């Protein structure tokens, strides 16, 4: 397996919460299903669904899956999770 097959944590940032009665978590799961292989269960890779103050999610993805999400409508940015440090 190449490095692009390895799952890493990515942040998918989508801006404001959608208007109306939309289940944001369902939206995130649905987006994941569109890029994940059928053998992978979305709930296993979804770490957080951000839905109280803004829209986005964190998931364990391959580089290819992250690239596909980056091209989707409704996505502001997709980037690898980093570890930050105390100051």
């Amino acid at each position, binding site marked *: 397996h190449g490095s692009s097959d390895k799952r890493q*944590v990515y*942040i998918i*940032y*989508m*801006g*404001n919460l959608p208007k109306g009665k939309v289940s944001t978590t369902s939206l995130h799961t649905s987006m994941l299903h569109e890029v994940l292989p059928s053998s992978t269960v979305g709930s296993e890779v979804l*770490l*957080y669904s*951000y*839905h*109280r*103050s*803004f829209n*986005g999610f*964190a998931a364990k993805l391959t580089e290819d899956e992250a690239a596909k999400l980056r091209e989707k409508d*409704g*996505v*502001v*940015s997709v*980037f690898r*999770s*980093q*570890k*930050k*440090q*105390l*100051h």
Partner: protein
Amino acid sequence: TTRSWDFMGFNKKVKRSIIESDIIVGMLDTGIWPESQSFNDTGLGPIPKKWKGTCQSSANFTCNRKIIGAKSYRAKGDIPSDYKSPRDYEGHGTHTSSTAAGGLVSKASLYGIAKGTARGGVPSSRIAVYKICWGDGCYDEDILAAFDDAIADGVDIISLSVGSFSQLEYFDDTIAIGAFHSMKNGVLTSNSAGNSGPILSSITNFSPWSLSVAASTIDRKFITKVKLGNGKIYEGTSINTFDLKGKMYPFIAGAAAPSTSQGYTSEDSRFCGPGTLNETLVKGKIVFCDYDSDGTGPAEAGAIGAVFQSGGYKDYVFPYSLPLSNLNLDDGRNVLNYVNTTENPIATIFKTNVEDDQFAPFVVSFSSRGPNPATPDILKPDVTAPGVDILAAWSEAVPLTEDDTRIVPYNIISGTSMSCPHATGAAAYVKSFHPTWSPAAIKSALMTTAFPMSSKNNLEAEFAYGAGHINPAQAAQPGLVYDAGEIDYVKFLCGQGYTPKQLKLITESNFTCSEETDGAVWDLNYPSFTLSASPGNSITRVFHRTVTNVGSPVSTYKAVVNAPPGLIIQVQPSVLSFKSLGQKLTFVVTVGAEIGNSMISGSLIWDDGVHQVRSPIVAYAS
């Protein structure tokens, strides 16, 4: 903290708002030690009705009327369940929380050092804890989850003393993203600037919608004296909590005590690294070391104390697990000469004394500097605040140093992590008087009322201290504010190169970028003015600004300009006449600069005789 608030004129008797106890400070950090006296809830009323958060209670953690909410975040499933609580097993979060919002605790000290009444900036406020950092760091997914909750929970301000190892674009950085949405919801995020100074452009939290805080000294320095057998006394630095009661001990150079059985020579042992010293030769003695470290080597070898010689920065100090003093190179050379030329050399190390530092405040060496790496024409950091040798509450789950077993309720540490919660406390204080003010207005109040600082002690000038040193008492009465809202930041983001598709997702307004907004990042209604150009060039820049009257209903402000050689500053109009509170007036600042190869700075002050609303003006070679 026992000194820092008084140092900036924010004394115990400062006027307090009756709604200070309704202010909720959101602390994104390593958790909290709830049993600390700093978080005692005696005298506090019911939890504010606006609070919508939760408390992750367990057998080992409960909230009270001071700590009204607490939750831990760790997506990686590698933390034992016993530790997955908001309890602080590191110390950092307890320290920052007590600095921002801790109650009054008399006779707080670290083994008698820095003794006084410890207090936070808003002692009556409430604390909401979001534990995002663990022993191995703070992960982006957890940080963003905490922001998502904190904003929705109803906190009034967010304090985050954490940053990246690298510099990221605004929407590739969870802290900038979280701070953006907190701004949109009326919540200011106060961020540490970072500890990568004094290298230029080393700042890591620099989004214009957050407050970026540098770290500076207070008028307190820690002196640890070393007395030799010849009667000479040398002044070093450290936090030496041990009292040898003046008893003299045999003194040996690390170079004379190599652990040869482990293959080390005197060239190794002179630095006193762990394992390099011969325990038999060092045990019960004070050892002289050619380099500064955490003292682990001498401690492991059984030394009674250590004297370090170092040419490094000496503007902040640490506690150690044994008596220790850091000498400068000249004094170190003299002391080493005594050790090497004296038969049976002896010495003692005294407990640390606290003395006045007449040079304070200056920005500490490690504090990250500007200019802003993403937007060169927005000044960063914004302000500086006390971040050096700050005494505040500590977690009793961790020893004072890694190498000892002593548990302390208060500890002295340094970092922009320590300055950030000072600014948080000051911002919360302003908000307690002006609960409807926007994050930008609160930030403006802190910046325009800041004590001016001098480039004499800070070569990097505004890139070290921004608008200056926070002045919390004055910040509640700024006179004028440079306000900004979501639409202003969206215009800014047009100039920053974000696409209409991206901007449509982050704003509810129907704003579209235009020629007017594209590239004009400097027209964000910011309380500072910055222009960059290539070295050796002259440049003229026109800044458009709007100020809102929050002082006297009827007032007239005159523009007072401070322009050093190489800087031409014109303000039109030069007089602003207000007829009501909340009235907004616009003006234009035209700055011409002969930049050369460095930076030039001046200022604009709007003065009505009562308020002096000061903004730095910086021109530099980019």
